[in-house]
Each structure stands twice: as structure tokens, then as C-alpha cells.
């Protein structure tokens, strides 16, 4: 079937060879304050070969004739790999409403209408600037791994926005994304308009009515936005096996699992999964770029380290099997151990129950800043929209509380998760050359007991 790739494969007489044709076509429409800022198109298309010959070699070009083995003899850091039989097959995400079923003009008009409604919101604060961006893309892959042939096609729709708002002597910047894999039906599913209007009103409330925060130990309830970024940063990244081994030490960093012999990282209600098989997710795939069938991985099970994200090379070093976590962002990037869709697994409580015995706490709804050290231990989140919780009831908006602490302290402080699950889009960076790959992250609402709250 993939004769072109098989011909390239024949030029590489090695035990393990991946040949990939990788195409990403995307279109971006950007509006500023309701007026068209620009339309941008991008086509990335080319071929790559990665092979193992004492060390890992990777070569890429748009012209398959350029792809040839190189002559260096090197004793590499990776000495072996799990060379289990690759899985052949095809995976695809359906466009229920094709991305091209609406013309560019109509899409721009739709975005204009959304912008107009946002800009005419009945609020007391001023919207200084509102940039709304729509992106659509289709990622297609053809792979030959040893002899197995694999094809995949994933369309994606993404809305991102940046709002600068001022009022009551304060200014806020809010940036966020909504997105899923699929066709134009996602614009409806994501309820973009409702989200934007609610967001602007909520930011107005923060600016106009926000109260200062008293620092100290408090109970905190994190929304799925916060539990999502925590799942990605504090669990997903440090559970990448190549990172634990040190392969990203000079780039995206290390992992607390590389330096601490710990199994119980969280309380018994903490379960974190990475699952590429979720329909509609941004990190969807069914066979990875090393030809290994994808599956759901439970990274943390009832608070204990259960499984790392593995590729063929890390799995050999851990004496285990690959769980299908190797992906590359484009034709000129090597496959690396990557997250797909990483989330805290929901529990059985509801949000009301999470809050009802909180006497003095804070609900973190969205954040404006986060960061984490390169061991993925010390982290910081500054709320953009946060609300007081007093005697079990949700109160008024608070001004920018800071949650800062260690991963293990936070995961051990979680004593309740509700039964909801929301996923949010993200782009995950790693490798050199750097490669940003589409992922989703999320979770339920989660309650953390007695954590330290700071102020800016």
C-alpha cells in the first residue's frame, strides 16, 4: 500500500527502521476587536527515517531522495530497544461537518459576530483589546515501521483568545483555548459564544468586586482547568520514562521520580490517566509513531505510581514493554515519549459535596500564570478567577490568590474529587529541535485540604 515508504525503507538495512510521511495542513483566522487581522495558511509536508544502528539516527527532508543512511559509527546512549512486532492499521477522526463545508468568508463572519457580542457585553469594565483566533488543521501520517504499514488522519479545531480588560484601577490579561479533534461541528459542541460571554462577565466581576486574600493555610477546590494543568505538569511530564532516565535533562528537564524512590505520591483518591483513545480529544491516536498500539495508561492508581509513559527505547531500559506513547509533531521531528490526554480520573462526589464542609477556602476557577520547576516538584498557580468559599457556600470573587507548593504535598492533600470530567487543549513542548504537540488535559473538581495560599 505505502510503496513510496517501502522503497525508502529498503535503503536502510538495519534491525529497526521507521519511515514516516507526515503532513499537517492548517488555516488560521485572527480578529482583533472584531476586525479581521489576518488569514494564515500553513502546509508542512515531508518524510523522515529514524533507524537504530548503535545509536539513534534521524534524517528528514521534503525530498525522499535525500534520505540515506549516514556513515558514522557511534556507541550511543540507547543500546537496545523493544523490537516487538509493530501493529499495522488505520485510525481516523471523523469530520461530521467537514472543515471545508463552510467558506472562509462565512467563518470570518461567524467570528465577527462572536466578537461583536463580546465587545458589546453589558459590563462596567473596559475591554481594551480582544484578539480571537480560529485554527483548523488536518494531520495525516503514513508510517512503515519495519514491515508494518500504519496510516492516521486527525482533523482539529481550536479557538483561542486573549482579552485585556481594565476597570476599577486594575488590569487583567486572560488567554485561553477551546478545542477538540473533529470537524466544524466542534464549534457548536464547544459552545464558544457562551464561554466567551461568561468569561467576560466573570472577569468584570473580578475587576469590579474582587476582594483581597488573606494568606495562610486554607482548603482549596480546583476546577477542571486547574486540575488539568496540574495533571499535565505535575504528573504527565514527570511520568515520561525518557525524562526519568535523563534523556530530556538539558531540555525539558528531569522528574522527581528520577531522584526520589517514592511510590505513594498522592492520597488514595488520586488516580491519573493518560488516554490517547478518547474520541474528540486533541491527543487522539490509536497506533503510535513506533507502530505500537495505543491504550489507556493509569499513571497513578489510588495514590501510587502505577505506570510510566514508555516508548521502545525507554521500555528496554525499564525492562518493560512500550505502552505506545511515542509521537512526533511533524515530519522533521523524531518521535519522543509524549503525553496524549492526561487527566485526574473523576470520583463519585459532586461539587456541592466538595464544598459543603469547607469553612474558609477558595475555589480556583481559572489561572493566569503557572509554572513549575524542571523536576516537576515546585509549582505555582495564580488564579485569575477565584471565589471565596465560606461555610460551604460559594462567595464573591477574590483578587489573585497564589497557590504555591510541591507536587507531592498537593497530591497528598487531595481528599475529594467530584464526578465531572472536562478536557482542555494544550500544546506540549519537548525535544531538540523543540516540538509542540497537541494534547488535552483535564479532570474533575478536586478538593485540597490545608494548603498554603500566598498573595502576589
Amino acid at each position, binding site marked *: 500500500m505505502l510503496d513510496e515508504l517501502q522503497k525508502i525503507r529498503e535503503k536502510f538495512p538495519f534491525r529497526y527502521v521507521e519511515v514516516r510521511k507526515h503532513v499537517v495542513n492548517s488555516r488560521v483566522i485572527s480578529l482583533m476587536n472584531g476586525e479581521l487581522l489576518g488569514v494564515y495558511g500553513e502546509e508542512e509536508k515531508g518524510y523522515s527515517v529514524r533507524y537504530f544502528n548503535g545509536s539513534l539516527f534521524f534524517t528528514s527532508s521534503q525530498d525522499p531522495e535525500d534520505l540515506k543512511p549516514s556513515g558514522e559509527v557511534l556507541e550511543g546512549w540507547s543500546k537496545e530497544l523493544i523490537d516487538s512486532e509493530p501493529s499495522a492499521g488505520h485510525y481516523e477522526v471523523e469530520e461530521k461537518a467537514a472543515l471545508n463545508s463552510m467558506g472562509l468568508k462565512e467563518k470570518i463572519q461567524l467570528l465577527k459576530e462572536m466578537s461583536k457580542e463580546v465587545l458589546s457585553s453589558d459590563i462596567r469594565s473596559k475591554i481594551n483589546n480582544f484578539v480571537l483566533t480560529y485554527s483548523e488543521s488536518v494531520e495525516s501520517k503514513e508510517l512503515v515501521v519495519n514491515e508494518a504499514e500504519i496510516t492516521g488522519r486527525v482533523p482539529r479545531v481550536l479557538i483561542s483568545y486573549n482579552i485585556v480588560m481594565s476597570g476599577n484601577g486594575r488590569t487583567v490579561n486572560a488567554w485561553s483555548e477551546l478545542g477538540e479533534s473533529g470537524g466544524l461541528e466542534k464549534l457548536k459542541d464547544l459552545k464558544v459564544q457562551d464561554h466567551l460571554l461568561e468569561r467576560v462577565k466573570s472577569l468584570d466581576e473580578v475587576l469590579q468586586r474582587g476582594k483581597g486574600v488573606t494568606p495562610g493555610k486554607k482548603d482549596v477546590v480546583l476546577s477542571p482547568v486547574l486540575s488539568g494543568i496540574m495533571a499535565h505538569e505535575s504528573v504527565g511530564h514527570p511520568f515520561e520514562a525518557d525524562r526519568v532516565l535523563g534523556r530530556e535533562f538539558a531540555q525539558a528537564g528531569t522528574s522527581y521520580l528520577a531522584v526520589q524512590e517514592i511510590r505513594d505520591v498522592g492520597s488514595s483518591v488520586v488516580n491519573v490517566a493518560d488516554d490517547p483513545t478518547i474520541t474528540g480529544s486533541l491527543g487522539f491516536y490509536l497506533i503510535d509513531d513506533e507502530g505500537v498500539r495505543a491504550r489507556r495508561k493509569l499513571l497513578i492508581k489510588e495514590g501510587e505510581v502505577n505506570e510510566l509513559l514508555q516508548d521502545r527505547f525507554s521500555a528496554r531500559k525499564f525492562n518493560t514493554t512500550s505502552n505506545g506513547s511515542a509521537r512526533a509533531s511533524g515530519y522533521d521531528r523524531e518521535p519522543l515519549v509524549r503525553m496524549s490526554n492526561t487527566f485526574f480520573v473523576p470520583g463519585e462526589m459532586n461539587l456541592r459535596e466538595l464544598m459543603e464542609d469547607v469553612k474558609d477556602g477558595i475555589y480556583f476557577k481559572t489561572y493566569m500564570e503557572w509554572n513549575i520547576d524542571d523536576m516537576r516538584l515546585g509549582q505555582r498557580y495564580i488564579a485569575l478567577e477565584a471565589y471565596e468559599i465560606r461555610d460551604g457556600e460559594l462567595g464573591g470573587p477574590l483578587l489573585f490568590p497564589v497557590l504555591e507548593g510541591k507536587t507531592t504535598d498537593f497530591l497528598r492533600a487531595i481528599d475529594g474529587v467530584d464526578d465531572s470530567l472536562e478536557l482542555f487543549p494544550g500544546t506540549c513542548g519537548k525535544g531538540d529541535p*523543540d516540538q509542540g504537540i497537541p494534547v488535552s488535559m483535564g479532570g474533575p473538581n478536586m478538593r485540597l485540604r490545608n494548603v498554603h495560599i500566598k498573595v502576589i
Partner: protein
Amino acid sequence: MDALKNVDQYAILEISSTSLVVKVVESKVEAVQRLKDRYFNVLLRKGRKFLVTKVTSMDNLEGNLAILDNLPDSKVVPSVLERSGKFSFSKTDQGIMNFMGDASRVAPLLNSRFPIYGTLTSTVITKRLVTSSGFEGEETRTWFQGYFRAKNGDYSGQWAFASTDYDERKIKASLERAEEFASYTGKIDVSDGVYDVILSPLTMGNLMMSTAYLASGYSIITGNSFLSNKRIGEQVASEKFTLRDIPKGEELNSWEFDDEAVPTMNKSIVERGKYVSPLLNLEVAEVMDMKSTGNAGWVYPRPWTLEVSPGEVGEGSLMDGNVILFNNNWYTRFQNRTEGQFSTVGRDATLVIRNGKPVGVAGRVRIADKLGNLLSNIYELSKERYSVAWWDAPLPGVYPYALIKNVHLSKA
């Protein structure tokens, strides 16, 4: 192409590059990557309609031309300079070309006390720009860059270099400095508070990259910059501080013309603490009633390569007294670009220096402050400067060490 006759203005920017990237893990070569890329960035403009598209072949442009007619007018429209004629520039280094042919040369260079991690990258890059005004420019450059992180148990040090020629001494010097930082041991607890800090050239590289992007005219007109509400000539930083964009120099990412065929120029963004200029392309300059600074980017102006002017003291004398020195940082995140409020996490050796001597290494402390405060509180800069770029500070630049007073640190 005949089809291009149907537009008012066009620009075709072809980028061709060949790179060798050698990734090093535990002082061994982990991956040898050879990457060959060629793509065309195309700007098409008809009145106030425009389209920017990236294609792998000019044959794929036809569909885009059809789209253009159906677009509404845009608010900010990219333009190209009325400049015709041919321009050609080439500056390549044979040492870099030789290195690209044989990655096995890396292995003997990795002798070190501690396990070394990092990347060496060599690139030959050609940029060609053809515009509807009759400009045909071509420029070829070679780049060589690397960064190393040395691991000494729980401690680490990192350094980098960025160069336009192959020089093994730069590799060796980077390894040595990474090892020197990694050799400091002993943990010292640093609590939240206000400290005098020294930022290494690597840390400066990260924060100056942010500063330069916030000085882009696009960031300013959209209100997404702490410079948005500053007047030209206003004091925004310490008098000791001068930040320049220097594409006409010898540094990596130097170029002779920008994406709109405007000749690049060296210019100050901040000169002795005074805000001198945003970085501009033709269209953002028009919005701001200014002139292009040769920093296009269509729609989004961007910096090329930066420098912070040197100070008058040796880097060693900055460390007199009680200070905290950041060898490196990462994950710089702004919570509010309008206010310049951000935090960034210390990485590698964050040295606690008391009475002029390193006494240990702080845990992972973060700087949590306003960028404007940092720039205003620059107290002294070293006369030694280093050309650096690394994974989390990819924009090349030449930076001194900086002593900054009263910086807010926070610790998880």
C-alpha cells in the same frame, strides 16, 4: 508566476536550511539528527485584503490566490518596501560545514568530570526574498550553537554558546563553566523575600527575549506589554541598562534585510534606561506613526539578535556582599503582560553568596516580580559578556552578568 500578476503586492520568502543536531545524554551521543527543510512563506495583498501562507512548493499557491478575492478587508495590512534590485550576501564557515558531515567528532569532546547532557547544532541557512517591487535578496549564513548541563548528583550547572563559526574552544569553555556551576554543593534554605540577585548571561538571555518580544509594536498596540503605556524617551529602566537589537553584527541570527525587504539596522530598544523604540515593521509603524525598524515579520514584528551593553566591573566583583546568583532559569510565565508581572523558576545552580563567597545552593527558588522593577533595579553589569542561546532562551544574544537590587523571590 503569472498568477502573482493579479495581486497588488506580494513577497515570497524562501527559507532553505540543513542542520545537524547531536543530542548528548550522560556524555554519550544519543541521537544524530540531519534535517533538511525548504519552504516558502508567501504574502499576497490586494488592497486591504491579504493572505499569508506557508507552502512547500510554489505550485501549491493557486488555491490561495482564489481565496484572496473572497476575503474582507483587514485592519492591519502587511506591506513591502518600494525597493528594487538584487542583493546578495553570504557568510559561511567551512568549519561548520565540515562538522555537519561527521557527527562522530562530538564524542571525543565530551570529556568531563560530571555526566554531560546537551545538544550541539550546526546549520547552514539560506533566505531568499522576492517582492512585487522588484527586490531580489539572497543571504546565506552558518550557525553553530550548543548548550550543556552537567549533573553532579543533586546539583547541576549549565552553560551555552552561540556562534557563526566552528570553534571547539567554545564547546570546551561551555562544558567547563557548566561543570564549575555544578561543582557547588550544599543546600541552603532561602525563604520568600526580597534579595539582591545576580542574573547570569543565560538568565539574562531568557528575560531579555521576553523584554524584546514585549517591545514588539504588535504587543504594544494590543496593550499586551508593560511598555504599552510608556512614552518614547521615558525612563523605564536603570541608567546602567541598554538593550539593543543588533542584526548587523557578527552574532547568530544576524540578517541584512527583513521580510518586507527593509534593510535591517542595529537599534536601541532601551538606551541608558530610556525607552527609545519599539520593534516595528512597515504596517505596525504606520499604525504608530513611526518608521519601520527593519524587524518584519508580516503583521508581527520580532527581534533578531540582542545585546545588553557591558558594565564597567569584572564579573567576580559583582559577587561582593550577600547575593543570590541565578545560573539559569526557565518557565518564564507572565500573569499580566500589561503590568509586566511574571515569575520564572531558577534552574541549575542558584548560588547563595555571603560576604563574597558561595556558601551553598538554594533550592528551586523563583523570581516573582515585575519586569519593569527588575530593569529599574539593575545596579551593575559585568564588563565580560557571553553569546548565548539555549533550549528555553532560543533567541541569540550577547549578555553580561547583571546585579539587581531588591528582587522578590518566592519558593514552593
